[in-house]
């Protein structure tokens, strides 16, 4: 838990673009909320790897959202059941039910449908909100922390300089 929080702070404090971080978290939300072993997540992984999003944020977010999904499963089941038994959509679902690609994705499962629909619906608002919050964090909280004496002293140490060199090298790799 402490490691995860430290990692999150490290990501937020890095010089990565806020949009790369928020997009990574948004992808992780889709991967984490929906049942993990599914072909759709292969596509999400593909996007996360090919698009220049922060991978640490993606993997950390996937773990966090997966944990959260356990508690949200009853809600996803309710949403999915409503959608799949919605008479207006019956024609669409029936068409999809008869196509192998959707059957493989198990779209007709209530938890899959509920979690997928919820994560897609939240995707754009989540990216915008996360972008906004990261920027605000960096502007106010991070700037304040950077200015504290403790942080100044820490940055002056040899250990910190060694860590920075390592981080620089890692980012170039």
């Amino acid at each position, binding site marked *: 838990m402490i490691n995860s929080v430290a990692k999150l702070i490290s990501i937020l404090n890095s010089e990565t*673009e806020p949009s*790369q971080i928020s997009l990574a978290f948004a992808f992780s939300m889709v991967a984490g909320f929906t049942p993990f072993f599914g072909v759709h997540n*292969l596509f999400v*992984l*593909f996007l*996360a*790897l*090919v*698009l*220049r999003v922060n991978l640490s944020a993606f993997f950390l977010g996937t773990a966090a959202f997966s944990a959260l999904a*356990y508690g949200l*499963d009853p809600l*996803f*089941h309710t949403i*999915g*059941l409503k959608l*799949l*038994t919605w008479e207006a959509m*019956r024609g669409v*679902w*029936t068409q999809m*039910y*008869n196509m*192998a*690609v959707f*059957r*493989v994705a*198990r779209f*007709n*499962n*209530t*938890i*899959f449908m*509920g979690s997928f629909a919820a994560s897609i619906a939240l995707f754009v608002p989540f990216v915008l909100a996360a972008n906004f919050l990261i920027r605000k964090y960096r502007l106010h909280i991070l700037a304040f922390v950077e200015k504290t004496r403790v942080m100044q002293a820490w940055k002056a140490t040899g250990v910190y300089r060694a860590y920075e060199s390592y981080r620089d090298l890692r980012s170039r790799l």
Partner: protein
Amino acid sequence: MKWIRWRGLGAFVLITAIVSVFWFLVIDRVIEHYIEKAGTSMVGAKVELDKADLSLFPLGLTLTRLQVTDPSSPMRNALEAGRIAFLMDGVNLLLSKVTIDEMSVEGVRFNTPRESSGAIEKAAQAGPEEEPFLTFEIPDVMEVLKKEELESLRLASEIKGRIESDRLKFTEALKGLPDEKKFDSYRERLNALKTRANGPAEVLSKASSLMALKKEIEADAANIKTLARDAGKTASYYRERVEFALGAPARDVQRLTDKYAITPQGLANLSRLFFSGELIAWTDKALMWRGRAERVMKAYKPDEGVEVKPRGNGADVRFPERKPTPDFLIRKAFVSVNIPSGDISGKVSNITGDQQILGSPMSFEFSGERLKGLDSMSLTGEINRVVPGQPSDYAKFDVRGYRIKDIDISKGSSMPLALRSGVADLSITAEIKGDGLDAGLKAGLSKLDLTAGRADEKNPFLKAGAEALSRVKAFGLGARASGTVDNYSLSVTSDLDNVLMASAGAVIAEKMSVFRAKLTKEINEEAGKKLKDMRSELSALTAVKDELDSRGLLTDRLIEEITKSLPTKGFKIPGF
């Protein structure tokens, strides 16, 4: 900022490749585990598989050495298949449908020994209740009477109590009716009115009094006669019941003789005692496997609607299919079975739980010829669930020229019977429609070498029976099971009945007469007093009825006398 990370594409390919290789490496074990787990759950005993091998191009599966434990005998396999191989339709598989055009099942063997127990739980199993074989020993009459409730005693007590209760009611009612004193007073009044009258006015007055007296007596007479009629009816009813109860000792004797002694009826179906245990065990086993097969079929349910899954897995919602096909279908399975006599081959068609979608029933046919110790055998049948509400199954099994060798028919009973050698022809048909079961067996056994009874047998009947059976060279056997699959009755007929009847009839007749005589004596003694009390009570009730009749007679006489004393016809008394 560049948005595309080309190195990510390489990473994706690498990750996908690693996952695919890992999946391919473990999938065989996953399939093996799944088959073992699902099979064990369905059968109720261990289902084990040595190896599963999935091939992708073409998509197929090969299973090596599948063992299905017999739940009733965990150290034996009910079925063992050496190799099962089939190809699957890949496109249908993506639609969650397993469609197998041809399956090959090789090296099927039944009832093979296991290296370790295949039981999954140690449930205390109550064995089938063994039908007691007649010991031909007469039980002690006193012991029998201690255990049994006698109809004669029950009826005597019950009827006596009811008669007594009714008698008391009638006696009580009788007390309210005119008695001797009352009749004396009526007579006194009548005699007074009969004296000579002085003048017409007195004549009229006396006539009027006579009419009043007559009316009074008539009212009493009506009450007496109504009660007498009721008492008569009641007494008549109880007379019949008493007659019936008096016959009860004889019925008790007959019932207990039928139950405990050896009767011709009991003897006439001795073959049931020899064969019914095995036949019931076979029938139950066949019905058990049918039930388990049905559970396998029901595992695939294609109905539209919401199919609830275990908690945390949500629910699958099913929609109409454009071209409905069964979720699981094996169009043809070619099966080769190894039996001790050799190999037999057969074909099973349309294995699916969705017959209503396929529109065809599952059918099977097996046959073998020129086998070792067997001229020919064939098995055909059909499991029809095309109309789910009207399930119907049938099977026909024929064996010709089966060479019998050392078959123990009844080992543990007081009359061991074993077929050492011989030839058998056997024909079994079974049909189940809905819950109704109708199965029949016909067997002809010839060239027999039969051993029966124990060498040191003392019981004269068993000795005579065993000697007669040992001389039997051929006999026929017929059996029929009918009823429902949960509750069926089995009838067995055989030529052996006649053999036993002829050999031991005299011994039985003698033993039966001794038992019957003792039983009759004891029952008559025990029930005699109670029956006597019951008859006395009936007599008491009849006495009440007689008393009512005699009072009725008295009233009739008085009325007749009054009528005679009244003026002749045409004379009208004013006021009447």
